[in-house]
């Protein structure tokens, strides 16, 4: 409720509602504290204004109320931490939380100044080898001699996903640190050059979303976004096929061959 009031963007992933609930909880907790404290504060500065209370009380408050209050703050924070904070993150990053290799759609996201490259393994399901040697040949340095890479798809600033299908995105960067943030999916992970870090989620709502670069990466940072298209498996397959025709016409069934020149 508070979240809505504050204008949170709608959630479109399976785990996202957990994050939202948690955030909601935090906001209620903060609101209660703040309102309580403010009422006390306003009453006090009114009641003990010099004109109403000319002589201060040297001994001040003796009640234990503040200790109780502090204790309950500690308690609620402990609940937030142990009940939500720790388990939620555990469910995002540990080995048993990740979807099985066979089940998931796997994508590599390779950031650069100022664009996102997405790398799909293609029909064989194996990612081709990458090396900086081939960086002039392919934007992600795909090794042209590696058979596994012959059918790989590379798309720029366009990420296609399937509803209700677990997705693992492995995120890295070619140059500086970028941030992979899909706010509707409640997903965020820095793209750090030198390491390849996986995140996983399961989109639930079909639609088009904006992928935000969440780390300052230079002059073009503000405009470094990518389109995320979430659709059904068939829609995804159609797109995949189109991409295949464009990028690897030689691999596409002869039947489709006449279409290829038109597409180019």
């Amino acid at each position, binding site marked *: 409720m508070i979240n809505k009031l504050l204008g949170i963007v709608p959630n479109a992933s399976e785990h996202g509602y957990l994050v939202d609930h948690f955030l909601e909880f935090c906001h209620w907790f903060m609101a209660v504290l703040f309102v309580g*404290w403010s009422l006390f504060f306003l009453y006090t500065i009114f009641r003990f204004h010099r004109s109403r209370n000319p002589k201060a009380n040297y001994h001040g408050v003796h009640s234990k109320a503040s200790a109780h209050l502090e204790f309950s703050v500690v308690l609620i924070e402990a609940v937030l931490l142990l009940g939500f904070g720790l388990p939620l993150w555990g469910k995002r990053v540990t080995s048993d939380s990740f979807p099985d290799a066979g089940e998931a759609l796997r994508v590599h996201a390779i950031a650069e100044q100022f664009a996102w490259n997405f790398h799909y393994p293609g029909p064989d399901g194996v990612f081709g080898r990458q090396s900086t040697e081939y960086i002039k040949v392919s934007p992600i340095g795909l090794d042209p001699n590696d058979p596994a890479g012959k059918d790989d798809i590379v798309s720029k600033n366009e990420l296609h996903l399937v509803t209700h299908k677990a997705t693992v995105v492995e995120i890295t960067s070619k140059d500086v640190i970028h941030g992979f943030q899909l706010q509707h999916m409640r997903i965020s992970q820095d793209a750090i050059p030198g390491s390849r870090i996986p995140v996983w989620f399961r989109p639930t709502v079909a639609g088009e979303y904006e992928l*935000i670069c969440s780390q300052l990466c230079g002059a073009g940072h503000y405009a470094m976004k990518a389109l995320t298209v979430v659709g059904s498996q068939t829609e995804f397959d159609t797109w995949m096929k189109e991409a295949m025709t464009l990028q690897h016409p030689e691999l596409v069934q002869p039947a489709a061959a006449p279409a290829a020149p038109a597409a180019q």
Partner: protein
Amino acid sequence: MAAITSPHAHEGDAHLHAHDDDHHELGFWQKYIFSTDHKVIGIQYGLTGLAFLFFGFCLMLVMRWQLANPGQAVPMIGGALQSIFGTAAFAASETGAPGMLTADGYNAFGAMHGTIMVFFGIVPIAFAAFGNFVVPLQIGAPDMTFPKINMASYWCFFISCIFMLISFFVPGGAAKSGWTSYPPLAGIADSAFLTFWNGQTLWLTGMVFNITASLLGSVNFIATIIQLRAPGMTWMRLPFFVWAQFVTAFLLLLAFPPLEAAGIFQLMDRVAGTSFFMPTGLVVNGNVAPWAGGGSPLLWQHLFWFLAHPEVYVLILPGIGMVAEVIANNTRKPIYGYKAMVGAIFVLAFLSFVVWAHHMYMTGMGAAVAAFFQTTTIMISIPSVILLTALMITLWGGSIRFTVPMLFAAAFLPMFGIGGLTGIPLAFNATDLYLHDTYYVIAHFHYVVAPGTIFAIFAGIYYWYPKATGRQLNELLGQIHFFASLIFINVLFMPMFLQGMAGMHRRWYDGGAQYEQLSKAVVLGHTGLEWNTVISTAAYLLCLAQVPFIFNFFWSMKFGKKIGRNPWDSTTVEWDAPSPPGHGNFDKPISVHRGPYEYSVPGADADFTPQTDPPANSKAPDQDANTNSQSVEKQH
């Protein structure tokens, strides 16, 4: 000066030290510029800091124009800005008007706003200026322990200021990788320009000087507080402000050096071509980058945040200290839970060294490490709650007089409350992944530093100005300044929470015009984008609200109401010195007989009993000083 007997007369060595410089007037240079007097140095720090605070604000005003009106030239002063900062920062807009902030210019201004506000504005004022001016007076010392090092500290700081300022005018402009200077971005930034003569390298060099200045200062502060307390000034009789400064000095002393190390690493990366922060296989602009590789960009982040988290408490603790002084004085009663508060700041300081990675939640942190940092981060909010609660309960039963310092100090409480509370959703990994690097974070920390620390600083300025100048600031102008600032600063920062929730990210040159989702989300009748205009307008008005203050500040130096030693009927020792205090501070020996906040002592004649009043004249208990000091020696 001959008449002024040091409180430590038994220590003075007539043969060695009774130098003639006490008898004849020092020259202008030694008195005002290269002075070793802590009060002069404090004022130097203060004026430099205020100037930078204002400068940092002006940078932000230009940026706010761009955020609200992307792509439009800054009106009126656009041409001037262009000729001052060059066309790299200010290009012509589409309509041809000169002075449109460029993306690089925006990033440079943003990075410098952060750097200047934190390291050249707040720390010099809240820590160095007030610490220098007030602490020795409050503990009854004649000066700092190392006056020459104190002077060196200021001049080191001054050099760092020069570096930062000239960096605006070198090819490519000032540093533009955020105040956090994350490599590899910072490592490759400006590398097309001369090795030394570029924004990022000058930033690093400036920071190394700034850090050195802070280290010299903090050694001095700690030594002064330990060694130069007047007779009878036991640990538990220290005003809370002194405690806050003591702890702050330790934070600076121990947290800054790792950043210095990191700064040296980054300088090596830029100047000697090393790859401390450069991983293997970097590709920049389609070319393999000229580094051997093998480094790690995360190393910088660890070393940076190892400083920068304690640094945020450096920003707030002196503020809380000043607020405590002002509140005690204006409620006319002792601070509630003094000992708990002292304990709380020690816990806060200790914990602040082990929470830094909460700024790095999105760097790929596993469950165990994340659990550790989430837990410590939540734990650190508890001492803050204790501090704020104690200050609020102090109000209860008081006889509150709303002088201008008190207005600012009172407003500090809820403002810091908002800032602190919104730190909580950031403290959890799972919620931070939604909020990270959005304007929610921007609003969070501005609430603690702007209406938080800046208000505390204003409270401090209005409170101690009479001691420094012998004159009081004008009340009416002060009230105008307060109410206008309070209103506009809230209109300025409150909508940022909404923007953040709606997905508006920080460091966006066009204020999010690129993003559909931001213009889709309507909050309280405005889209995320439209709030930009509201915020920017509030920022200009906030600037306007400072005019009465700036006028008051200079006008009152000459024409303010003259006051005596103790205009606020205060208990602490600094009010026993003349206003302004002379060289050597006190004109009579100081000895302390009671705690810092003996206001409205039952049975006393006045509603305040100064710490220096001998016990015979009052029925105030000369508390069990011996046991007191012993227990502190042990616990601290």
